[in-house]
C-alpha cells in the first residue's frame, strides 16, 4: 500500500494541483454575487461622538453600535461594551443625528417642464386633441423611479437619508413609495411600497373637471362611487343570485384600499382654502389622511388642531399666484417670501402643533437655506430636528424602524462637524441601512 501510494503521488500532484487552482479560479470568477449581492457588512462602533438620539436627551460622549444594518446599542462611553468584531469609527468632534427624512419629494422622477406654446401652431396643437384626463390612482410611482448615485450623494450631503417619492400629475396622482437612500438599486431602497394615495386639487384642461369646484365635485363623486362599488362587490360575493354583477372599474379598484380600508391618503394644500377643503372631504368620508404642502397651515391652526391630522409642511416659501400676498403688489409679495411664509413652522410650534418638514418643491441647496430661514424666523432647532426625524417616521408608520437612534431601529444616521443647522456645518459621514458613506470636506464619497 505504501509503495503503491508513493508511486502514485508524484505523478498526480502536478495535475491535481493545477486542477485545483483552476477550480478555485473558476469559482471566484463565476461567483455572481460579487457585484450585486449584499455583502457581509462589518459591524461598526462609532466612538466618542456627541449623540442626538431624539427620543432621549443628548449624550455628550457616546458610542453607537451597528450590526447588520441595525442599531445594536446607543449609550454613553463606558456604559457600552464594544464588541470584538466591531470596526471602530472615530467620531470625536462629530455630532450624530438620526438620518433626516423628507416625507415628500419628487426625487428620481424625470419631470418634463411643460413648455409654453411659443408659436401659433404649437398653441393650436395644444388644443387640437381632446385632452386626455390625467388620472392615475393605480400608478405605483416606484415603477417610474430611476435612482441616480449623484442625487443620492447630493441628498446625503444635506443629511437626508430617507425620502418619500410621490407622483406629481393629475388630481388622483398615484401611490408613493418610501425609500432609504442606501444606493442606486431600487429594490434594496424600498422601505414601504406603496405608502399613500396622493391627491392634488389640480384641474384638467379641456376635459371635466377643469375648475377647482369641478375638481372637488369630481373627487367626491369618485369617493361615493368607491363606496357604492365596494358595497356592490361585497353583496355580489355574498350572494350573486339575481344581482347584476359589478362592472370592473380600474379607477375604483385602485381607490378601494384607501377609501374603504382606510389606507393613507395625502392631500396637497397650497393655501388656506385648500386646507379647509381637504379637511371637509376627510371628515365627510372618514379618511385616514395626511396634508402636505401646508404653506399656510398657521392660518388654519384651530381647525387643524381639532382635526388632528398629520402635516407635511413644505419649506418652499414662494407665494403661489392664488395667495393673498401675491395680489397686493410686489412689496407684500417679497415680504411673504422672506418673512411671512418662513414663520409658518414657528407659528405652528407656538400653537403646540406637531408637524413634519419636507423638501418638496426645493432642491438640496434651497432646502437647507430655507430650513435655516425657518429656524431664524423662530422655529426652535430641536423642533426642527424632530420635524425631520421622529415626526415623519410616525406619519409614515415607520416609527418602530426610523426617526431616532434607538437599539433595534434601522441604522440611518448622519455625522456632522458642527451643530446640524448651523451655516458652517458639514455632513461628514452618512450611514444608511448600516452602509457607511464618507464625505470629506472636499472630495469624493467613499463607501464602505
Amino acid at each position, binding site marked *: 500500500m505504501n509503495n503503491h501510494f508513493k508511486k502514485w503521488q508524484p505523478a498526480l500532484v502536478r495535475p491535481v494541483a493545477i486542477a485545483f487552482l483552476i477550480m478555485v479560479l473558476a469559482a471566484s470568477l463565476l461567483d455572481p454575487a460579487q457585484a450585486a449581492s449584499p455583502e457581509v457588512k462589518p459591524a461598526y462602533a462609532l466612538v466618542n461622538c456627541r449623540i442626538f438620539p431624539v427620543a432621549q436627551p443628548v449624550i455628550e460622549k457616546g458610542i453607537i453600535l451597528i450590526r447588520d444594518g441595525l442599531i445594536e446599542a446607543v449609550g454613553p462611553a463606558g456604559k457600552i461594551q464594544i464588541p470584538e468584531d466591531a470596526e471602530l469609527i472615530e467620531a470625536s468632534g462629530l455630532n450624530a443625528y438620526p438620518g433626516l427624512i423628507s416625507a415628500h419629494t419628487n426625487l428620481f422622477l424625470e419631470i418634463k417642464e411643460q413648455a409654453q406654446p411659443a408659436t401659433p401652431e404649437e398653441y*393650436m396643437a395644444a*388644443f*387640437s*386633441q*381632446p385632452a386626455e384626463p390625467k388620472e392615475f390612482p393605480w400608478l405605483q410611482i416606484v415603477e417610474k423611479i430611476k435612482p441616480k448615485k449623484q442625487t443620492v450623494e447630493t441628498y446625503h450631503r444635506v443629511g437626508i437619508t430617507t425620502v418619500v417619492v410621490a407622483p406629481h400629475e393629475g388630481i388622483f396622482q398615484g401611490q408613493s413609495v418610501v425609500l432609504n437612500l442606501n444606493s442606486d438599486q431600487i429594490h434594496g431602497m424600498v422601505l414601504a411600497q406603496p405608502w399613500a394615495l396622493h391627491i392634488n386639487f389640480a*384641474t*384638467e384642461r*379641456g*376635459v*371635466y*373637471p*377643469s*375648475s*377647482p*369646484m*369641478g375638481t*372637488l*365635485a369630481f373627487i*367626491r*363623486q369618485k369617493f*361615493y*362611487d368607491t363606496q*357604492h362599488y365596494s*358595497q*356592490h362587490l361585497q*353583496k355580489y360575493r355574498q*350572494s350573486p*343570485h*339575481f*344581482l347584476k354583477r359589478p362592472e370592473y372599474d380600474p379607477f375604483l379598484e385602485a381607490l378601494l384600499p384607501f377609501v374603504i380600508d382606510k389606507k393613507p391618503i395625502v392631500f396637497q394644500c397650497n*393655501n*388656506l*382654502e385648500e386646507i*379647509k*377643503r381637504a379637511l*371637509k372631504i376627510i371628515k365627510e368620508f372618514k379618511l385616514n389622511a395626511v396634508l402636505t404642502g401646508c404653506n399656510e397651515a398657521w392660518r388654519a391652526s384651530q381647525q387643524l388642531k381639532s382635526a388632528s391630522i398629520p402635516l407635511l409642511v413644505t419649506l418652499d416659501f414662494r407665494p403661489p399666484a*392664488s*395667495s*393673498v400676498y401675491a*395680489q*397686493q*403688489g*410686489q*412689496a*407684500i409679495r417679497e415680504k411673504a417670501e422672506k418673512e411671512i411664509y418662513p414663520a409658518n413652522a414657528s407659528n405652528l410650534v407656538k400653537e403646540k402643533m406637531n408637524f413634519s418638514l419636507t423638501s418638496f418643491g426645493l432642491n438640496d441647496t434651497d432646502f437647507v437655506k430655507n430650513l435655516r430661514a425657518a429656524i431664524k424666523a423662530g422655529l426652535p432647532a430641536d423642533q426642527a430636528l424632530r420635524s425631520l426625524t421622529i415626526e415623519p417616521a410616525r406619519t409614515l408608520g415607520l416609527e418602530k424602524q426610523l426617526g431616532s437612534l434607538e437599539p433595534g431601529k434601522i441604522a440611518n444616521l448622519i455625522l456632522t462637524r458642527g451643530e446640524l443647522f448651523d451655516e458652517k456645518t458639514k455632513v461628514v459621514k452618512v450611514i444608511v441601512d448600516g452602509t457607511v458613506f464618507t464625505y470629506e470636506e472636499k472630495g469624493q464619497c467613499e463607501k464602505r
Partner: protein
Amino acid sequence: MILFLLSATWLLAGGDLLIKNATILTVTGGVIPNGDVLVLNGVIKQIGQNLTAPAGVRIIEANGRYLMPGIIDTHTHIALSGTNEGTDAVTPEVTMAEVVNADDTSIFTALSGGVTMVHTMHGSANVIGGTNVVLKLKWGKPSEELIVKEAYPTLKFALGENVKQSNRTLLPGRPQRYPATRMGANALIRTELMRAKDYMATWDRYEQLKKSKNPPANLFPPRKDLRLETLADLLRGKLIARCHAYVAPEMIEFLNLSKEFGFKIGAFEHAWEAYKITNELKAAGVGISVFIDSWAYKMEAAEGIAYNAAYCTKKGLLVSINSDSGERIRRLFNEAGKAVKYGLTQDEALKLITINAAKQLGVDRLVGSIEVGKQADLALFSQHPMSAYTRCEMTIIEGDVYFDREALIKKRAGASAQKGGLS
C-alpha cells in the same frame, strides 16, 4: 333654547357703533335728515335724533353725509377660486360655496364702493352651471364667516350665446359642444330634468322596497349621483333657478320649462329684452337682475335699452341692478343713479341696489334697508348716493367698519413711500 343661545353668541360677534347727524336713507321708511343710528352687537337698535350710546361705543360723525343700507350685488363672480366649469354643458354638482376665496382683493374693491353683500355665482359657460353662494364681504375674516346661510340656495342656469359657444372660434380636432343652438339648450334642460325625475323615482322605489315586509334578496341601493341629486333638489323646491338670459324668447321658454317641471325661478340675469315681455314676467312673478346700460357687446345684447330697468320697475317687476364685474361693482351706486334719467325717482333707484336685491336673495328680513332689528350693513356717502358727485366714505357690515376712507388717507399720509397693502 340652544338655538337661542347659539344665535345670541352669533349676534355678540357684531360690532357697536353710533352714527350721528347723518341724512338717513332708510329705503323703506323715507329719509331722515340729521338722524342718528345706534348699532349694538351688529344689529340696528335705534334710529332717531340725539341718541346716546353706552360707554366705549365708537361714534362716527356723519356731518350731514348720506347713510344708506349696504349695497347688495345680486350677480358677481368675485371671492371665488374659479368661475366656470366650462367643459360639460350640465354640471349642477359643482358647488361654488366650496370654493369661496376670502383672500380675493376684489372684496376690498367692492367694499370701497359701499357693497356689503354679493350673490356670487358660477359663470355662464354651461346650460346648468352649479349652485351659488351669498357672501357678506367681511374682508379679513375666514371664508366660512362670509357665507350667508339664510339666503335662498340657488342653481345657475344659462341660455344664449355663451352656452352655445357661438363667440368662440372652433379649434381643430375639438368638436362643437352640444348644445349649439338655443333649442338644443332647452332640450338639454328638459332631458336632464327628466333624467333627474327618473333618478328620484329609482331611489323612491328602493326606499319603498327596503321598508317593505319582504324586501327582495338582491335589493341594492342605486348609485348616488351628485349631478342628478342637485337637479332633484331643484325639482323638490330646495333650490331656485337663477337664469342668465338675454333675449325675450329665451325667457318665455324658460318660464314654460319652469311650469312644465314645477321649479321656481329666482330671477332672470341680464334680461336685456325684459321690457318686451313685462306681462309674462309679471304674471309668473319673476324678477330681473340687470345692467343699466352696458349693452351692445354681443348680438343678444343689441336690443338692450337703458330704459329697461326703469320701465320694468314701473310695470311692477322686482328689479335689481348688478355688476357682474370686479370693476363695475365699485360704482354700482352710479349705475343705479342712472335709472333716474330713464324714469325713476332717486328713492326708486336706490331700491334697485338695496331692498329689491335683498328680496331676490331671500334676505330682506335681515338687510336691504335701515330699520330697527335689521343687521347693521351700512354705507356712508359724501353726497347722495344717486349723485354722480358722490363717493363712498365708509362701509360697515354688522356694525364693524370694513372700509374707512378717512383712515386710509391718514395712513397714506403717515406711511413711507414704500406703502403697500390694506388698512
